[in-house]
């Protein structure tokens, strides 16, 4: 692994570099910056909802803008660029190639993210990350809405470029001695998620253009006043964004496949079932999009088809969980910080999946749809699974990237606080949803159960907030002043790396 910050370099040298670890570092820092920015917005939302009535945020429009930018930021500017960071560092090394297949394209894909982030943050749109028409066409204030549309457009192009690069790097640039069946599971996760991106994203790209021309008044695709149909947008949106859920979660699972065997000091239980489950997930991920739309007036048959499609994804996810548990079974486990995050992430992945089964079952969905249950459900994925896997991987990469060790105690405190906070926030939100509280509301009536549960959620969110401050302090302090890491075995787990081809990258 390349020791990134060992010798100080001027920042412009990293910024204008096309080398995969430099671009990876840019992705890493940018995505973590957006994690803290998006997280700060979440704390603002939670502070406001601590009590009914307007306290911290005094008008509904500001609140609506905040939750819109919170969601957009964390999905598109944290999770996706973070996966690209890990992919940039690891994929070329794992397939034993000198760089990504197209280094300049790689740098271009990264440099699309800052302007897109600027458009989204300077605009601060209010129409939710789903940009529902006809609200987004006839009612959402511009130019914020238009800036959001352009921002997402740029991010979509960036994702597609990144995906092409990963697919070509893995399939065409892997070492000739290496068969596809020997590519490590982390690289497999990037292959699967990149293929999903290539199939899914163009649909939303088209929908965004249609939304834009609808807003300009020159077309009426989704505007009922001009003969259009908002449900068409819902289909186009979810055809992209249900598979996109797998784009987000598959690399995080790949990261766990890297961490769990290492700290269990055992090879992965079944490489083949890991690959099989990735491929299966990326196919069945396309059969479930309209489970987001049961309440739009779909027929019984349509609902049944999409319920079956949704439930079909469960065995593949369950195979990953089995693989992790079987790998840890009888292992000499070392609970260093990355391992704690990975194991916590698996536990929360299981809980999130169990809640998802309830959502998919048609009659239950009418209780949970668009309530805080759904907020709790998908946050258990994006926070509990994806962010946990990703943060675990930040700790895991840290000695390789900086050449220094992070502070282990602070890392463990960060994990324990975040885990408690996550359980408090998102499990409670499930229950709050069952009590009927709708999502995306600025204020709520003083129903005693709602008040108590909102307060528990806010306290949990503040615990996560404090833990993230500890994380930030640890990263900043340790990257300059931390103990020097042993590059051969920074975590002291001994043994060798468990990807099949551990030979040195020929170009370094």
């Amino acid at each position: 692994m390349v020791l990134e910050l060992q010798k100080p370099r001027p920042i412009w040298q990293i910024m204008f570099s096309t080398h995969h670890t430099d671009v990876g570092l840019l992705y890493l820092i940018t995505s973590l910056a957006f994690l803290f920015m998006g997280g700060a917005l979440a704390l603002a939302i939670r502070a406001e909802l601590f009590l009914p009535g307007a306290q911290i945020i005094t008008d509904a429009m500001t609140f609506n803008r905040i939750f819109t930018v919170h969601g957009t930021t964390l999905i598109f500017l944290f999770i996706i660029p973070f996966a690209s960071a890990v992919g940039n560092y690891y994929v070329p090394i794992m397939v034993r190639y000198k760089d990504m297949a197209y280094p300049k394209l790689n740098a271009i894909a990264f440099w699309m993210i800052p302007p897109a982030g600027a458009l989204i943050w300077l605009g601060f749109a209010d129409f939710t990350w789903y940009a529902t028409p006809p609200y987004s066409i006839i009612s959402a204030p511009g130019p914020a809405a238009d800036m959001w549309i352009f921002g997402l457009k740029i991010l979509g192009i960036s994702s597609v470029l990144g995906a092409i690069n990963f697919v070509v790097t893995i399939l065409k640039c892997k070492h000739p001695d290496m068969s596809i069946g020997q590519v490590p599971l982390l690289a497999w996760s990037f292959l699967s998620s990149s293929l999903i991106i290539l199939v899914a994203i163009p649909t939303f790209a088209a929908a965004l253009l249609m939304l834009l021309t609808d807003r300009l008044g020159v077309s009426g695709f989704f505007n009922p006043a001009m003969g259009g149909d908002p449900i068409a947008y819902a289909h186009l949106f979810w055809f992209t964004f249900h598979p996109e859920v797998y784009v987000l979660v598959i690399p995080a699972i790949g990261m766990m496949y890297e961490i769990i065997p290492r700290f269990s000091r055992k090879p992965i239980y079944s490489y083949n079932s890991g690959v099989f489950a990735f491929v299966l997930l990326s196919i069945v991920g396309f059969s479930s999009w309209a489970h987001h739309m049961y309440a739009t007036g779909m027929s019984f048959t349509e609902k049944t088809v999409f319920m079956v499609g949704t439930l079909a994804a469960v065995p593949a996810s369950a195979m990953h969980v089995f693989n992790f548990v079987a790998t840890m079974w009888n292992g000499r486990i070392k609970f260093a910080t990355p391992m704690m995050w990975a194991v916590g992430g698996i536990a929360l992945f299981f809980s999130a999946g169990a809640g998802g089964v309830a959502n998919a079952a048609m009659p239950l969905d009418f209780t949970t749809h668009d309530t805080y249950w759904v907020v709790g459900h998908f946050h258990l994925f994006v926070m509990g699974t994806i962010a946990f896997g990703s943060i675990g991987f930040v700790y895991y990469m840290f000695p390789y990237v900086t050449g220094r060790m992070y502070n282990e105690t602070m890392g463990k405190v960060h994990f324990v606080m975040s885990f408690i906070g996550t359980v408090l926030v998102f499990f409670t939100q499930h229950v709050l949803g069952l009590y009927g509280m709708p999502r995306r509301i600025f204020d709520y009536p003083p129903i005693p159960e709602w008040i108590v549960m909102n307060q528990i959620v806010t306290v949990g969110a503040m615990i996560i907030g404090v833990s993230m401050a500890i994380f930030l302090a640890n990263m900043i302090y340790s990257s300059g002043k931390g103990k020097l890491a042993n590059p051969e075995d920074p975590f002291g787990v001994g043994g060798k790396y468990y990807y099949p081809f551990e030979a040195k990258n020929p170009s370094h």
Partner: protein
Amino acid sequence: MGGHSNWPEWIYVGVVIALMVWVGAEAWEAERLVEHVPADAEIIKVTGQQWLWTFEHEDGTKERGELHVEVGKAYKFEIESIDVNHSFNIHDYVVLMDAIPGRVNTVWFAPTEVGQHDIQCREYCGLIHYNMRGTLYVEEPSS
């Protein structure tokens, strides 16, 4: 990759698939029953608009923000919207259906007890979405 046998994983996957089949079958059966609208259901037209619900009964009576129904009768809501998407929701009776401009969606319910319940909008519809609320009054039959 190793030479060990994989039978525990196959058993586990089999159990998960069986569970999913069971959940799917139960849901299918329940939804089929829930969607069967009684023939004598009275029709109430529900209109969503930013940020208010209005109701029109079969006899032509109109109500704004409040809905009065009688216990023991079945009602079928015909839901539409005149501006943006909304979602008509009486959480206590698991009544939920989107109000979408250009479409009429239906859902039915039969109140079983006298009482008051909240009506709310569950789909984001803009500035006052949080307060697009109403009250359902379930009353004794008048005659």
